[in-house]
């Protein structure tokens, strides 16, 4: 619609951004500036394609996209669920696949069956609350932690935890296991609602181009 406008991407920092750029390269979208490890730049530009990229902390990506500071974001499904923002989730990029699970020692399994009040430690209070209240109809007490969630049941802070499980090896080493699966997760492409309308042609093309390379 507007020829001179940049399309701005917000990418979740770390492995996700790397995988996203690899995927984008397959469809001819590159950003050389971003590969320079030494750079202190915050915004990277591809002048030829009129694209801008920036890196943000995962949970901030939906915020940038919701307010239209970025047109498009790439972020994990866990973050989308936890932030609960108003945005369009248009594509499952497939990578970063893992599961959100309820985990704990095997004897805690019994306590998930009888609607009794238990304590749940998690980095994702919203996802945990939605799962226990709306799907399992079990009243729980949620304890928000910021990392090393596995510690909680071991030191007796909570009965179970809700966390992301990739291979489960950390759990096993600490005598814990997956008790229930909440939902599968992977990287998603999200789009601002206005951008989807106003920049429809460019975004639709991007989605069509991406679909075959993500093997879905």
């Amino acid at each position, binding site marked *: 619609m507007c020829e001179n406008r940049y399309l701005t991407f917000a990418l979740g920092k770390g492995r996700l951004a790397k995988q996203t750029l690899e995927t984008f390269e397959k469809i001819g979208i590159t950003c050389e500036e971003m590969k320079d490890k030494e750079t202190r730049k915050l915004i990277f530009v591809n002048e030829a394609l009129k694209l801008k990229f920036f890196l943000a902390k995962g949970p901030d990506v939906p915020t940038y996209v919701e307010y239209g500071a970025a047109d498009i974001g790439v972020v994990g499904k866990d973050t989308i669920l936890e932030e609960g923002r108003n*945005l369009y989730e248009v594509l499952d990029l497939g990578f970063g696949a893992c599961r959100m699970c309820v985990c704990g020692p095997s004897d805690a399994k019994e306590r998930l069956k009888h609607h009794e009040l238990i304590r749940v430690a998690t980095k994702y209070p919203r996802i945990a609350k939605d799962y226990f209240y709306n799907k399992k109809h079990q009243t729980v007490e949620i304890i928000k932690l910021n990392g090393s969630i596995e510690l909680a049941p071991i030191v007796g802070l909570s009965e179970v935890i809700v966390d992301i499980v990739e291979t489960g090896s950390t759990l096993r080493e600490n005598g814990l296991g997956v008790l229930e699966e909440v939902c599968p997760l992977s990287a998603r492409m999200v789009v601002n609602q*206005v951008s989807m*309308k106003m920049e429809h042609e460019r975004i639709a093309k991007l989605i069509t181009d991406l679909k075959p390379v993500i093997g879905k």
Partner: protein
Amino acid sequence: MKRRILHTPEGVRDIYNDECERKQILQDKLKQAIECYGYRIIETPTFEFFDIFGKEIGTTPSKDLYKFFDREGNTLALRPDITPSIARAAAKYFIEEDMPIRLYYAGNTFINNSSYQGRLKESTQLGAELIGDNSVDADAEILSMAVECLLASGLKEFQLSVGHSDFFQGLMESAGFDEEAMEELRELIANKNYFGVEEVISNREMEENLRELFHMLGNYYFSREEMAKARALAVDYPRILSAVVRLEELQKALEAYQIDDYVSYELGMVGNYQYYTGIIFAGYTFGSGEPIVKGGRYDKLLTYFGKQAASIGFAIVVDQLLAALGRQNAVMEMPGRGTLLVYAKGRLAEAVTQATQIRKSGGSVELIGMDSWRAREEYEAYAEQNRKENVIFLD
């Protein structure tokens, strides 16, 4: 401690000077555009009984309303949008009226949404309602008014996306989805999560035609040919068919207004208010992360207040529109602010005589007593800053 009381609570703010004037000018332009269509202004209270905005009406969720009690213990709520109030007022004052009623309003709305930091909780909405007319012509009039308003505001690039609530409802009905599946799909469609939609419907037995119609939810710009195709596919599904036919009729009616460039059709639209029963639409532009216009048909809403009247309306989110105009660097003509009259102490009588003369002839004068220690340039700079057209010194 004194500094504390200068703060405003989170989500509300002061608007003053240039910004406030710009907002007033914008609102005047919008009002003018609406008055051109013969609409009359209405004011309803800022707060009403809770039931006006309750669950049956289907506006904003109860948890996002500001609620409080009156002396008798009734629950009151600050209005989250103004349409339900207009519907109530129309049912109350125009119960016998069988001619169409045209009303417009401007006022502040309040949504108590704590999880959205950085979003205002008080915002100004300006809108119009056409009550008691269920024709396509009424749909077209409302849409063209929305376009005229945005054009009058100085916006050049924008899109109105038009859909029909029965398209989604009809799909659900025809596919036999239960309440729970319907909620899931509504959410997926509202988030434009079509791979999610795909997943749900691929596991379902359904006729090929219906499946094709489901695929159409992902199309944002329906051409005439695609619309005709949708009509052909919907032949066995009366509710879907009537939605598509209505959109085609609307397209035709809009030809008369010649606003095709600004309107596009999107069958996958689901309205943000549950009271919408027919045409729904939203307006988008650059520089605003959210829609600047929301609207739709609400044929059942007035029934709730005891009047049978099919209606349609729209509301412009004035603050969003103003922000978008600012970000698009749209130039808004700001009128000059008259004369600054600086008089030496002791010459007040003279100054007042002169000021009164100018004021009587319709001009504006701001009087300032001159401080002997201040340079003339300071007054000139002040005049410049405040858009004064000229400065008179009486010294």
